[in-house]
């Protein structure tokens, strides 16, 4: 995969920059170009919005059968996280005893290596989550 695909997502992946609908005030992450509530009215009114990085685990799983790029990370936790701003996202939970993870656990975003394009290619960084 070319690096451009990764590069253009840097604001969202590094800094959790999503979108806020200036019409209804709802916050979206991952970024969306149209508010599904306001639709036409929201066109051109979706502004960048930086999330606090704080959220709550809504559900989680421990992955034992990974895609090849994640084979050295097994077992790792993937969670569905409800961000304090109301939107949901999917991310890993790290630096945590896997047994400790539970629904309702408070987490905060941290900055980690997500993947790399082999040993010679680019390194892709982004958000993961740590227990608060």
């Amino acid at each position, binding site marked *: 995969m070319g690096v451009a695909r990764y590069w253009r997502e840097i604001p969202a992946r590094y800094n959790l920059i999503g979108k806020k609908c200036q019409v209804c005030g709802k916050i979206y992450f991952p970024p969306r170009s149209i508010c599904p509530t306001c639709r036409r009215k929201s066109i051109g009114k979706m502004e960048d919005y930086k999330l606090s990085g704080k959220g709550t685990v809504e559900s989680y799983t421990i992955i034992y059968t990974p895609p090849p790029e994640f084979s050295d990370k097994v077992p790792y936790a993937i969670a569905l996280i409800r961000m304090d701003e109301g939107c949901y996202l999917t991310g890993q939970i*790290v630096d945590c005893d896997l047994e400790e993870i539970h629904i309702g656990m408070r987490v905060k975003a941290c900055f980690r290596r997500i993947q790399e394009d082999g040993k010679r290619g680019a390194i892709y*960084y982004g958000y993961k989550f740590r227990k608060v």
Partner: protein
Amino acid sequence: MVAIVSYGAYVPKYRIKVEEIARVWGRQAKSISAGLNVFEKSVPSIDEDTATIAVEAARKAVEHGGINAKEIGAIYVGSESHPYAVKPTATIVAEAIGATPDLTAADYEFACKAGTAGMQNCIALVNSGMIKYGMAIGVDVAQAAPGDALEYTAAAGGAAFIIGREGIAEINETVSFTTDTPDFWRREGQPYPGHGERFTGEPAYFRHIMSAAKLLMEKVGTKPSDYDYAVFHQPNGKFPVRVAKKLGFDKKQIEDGLLCPIIGNTYSGSTMLGLVAILDIAKPGQRILAVSYGSGAGSDAFDITVTDKIEGYERMKLKEMLNKKEYVDYATYMKFRGEFR
């Protein structure tokens, strides 16, 4: 005047004990620990590297200082373990703290003093009026060949300092002492450093640190007893204690900044993390001497006075972070380091 406006630090939560490394290589842990004054060291997790540690430290510095990241005009990341040989770590940090695009950024390499070299640059840029704030980061996920003596100490961690006109600690003076002394190196394309064994001591570490410290004290007219705290580069737990004694500092002055026994040698992070530990507890008016050492070789010395502004400033509480730790075995450590190829 130029001052430290804010600071941040990050040390990964994983640790490996010296006895675990010694077990694998059939060495005597007790004598190694006693000889090095190191008992355990920090280990980066499988998804941590110099860039992620730098970002975590930088974010803490920005957050605690209440700094508008757009006002940071320069970012320098000093390390000898940048994730890329070509492509800066500093740009990753700049993007991750929201400082882009109106700034200058670069990576530095000067063995273990690359971070303090960045500090000096920030001081100069602030002093010249070229920038409002500069950020200097010293960070490493230190490399050591499996089985090498360095493996007992080579650790991971880093600290970020934001330099500006006014702040929590004024930098009264800085000087450097530099010569060409090949005591430790890593050749291009090689995964692990090589070193001159005992040559790394007297002609290298001790000569440069002592010369820089003396030069600085001479320049500002101080003597060791004028300082409340001193921190020296910590390749192991013994050298900084010995160099302090030789310079005329007592144990009390250095013990708060001495982290190597419990986290190992964080290379470019070492002196700066020691300074973080001191700033975490220092009171207004207290004076600090900080001297880094980078193989190859050189030392940067700083004369610092804590200001009233430190009251009310949200400090890093590095020691609390260091207390949250989890031990790993040697195989896990090797896996985290990506040593299985």
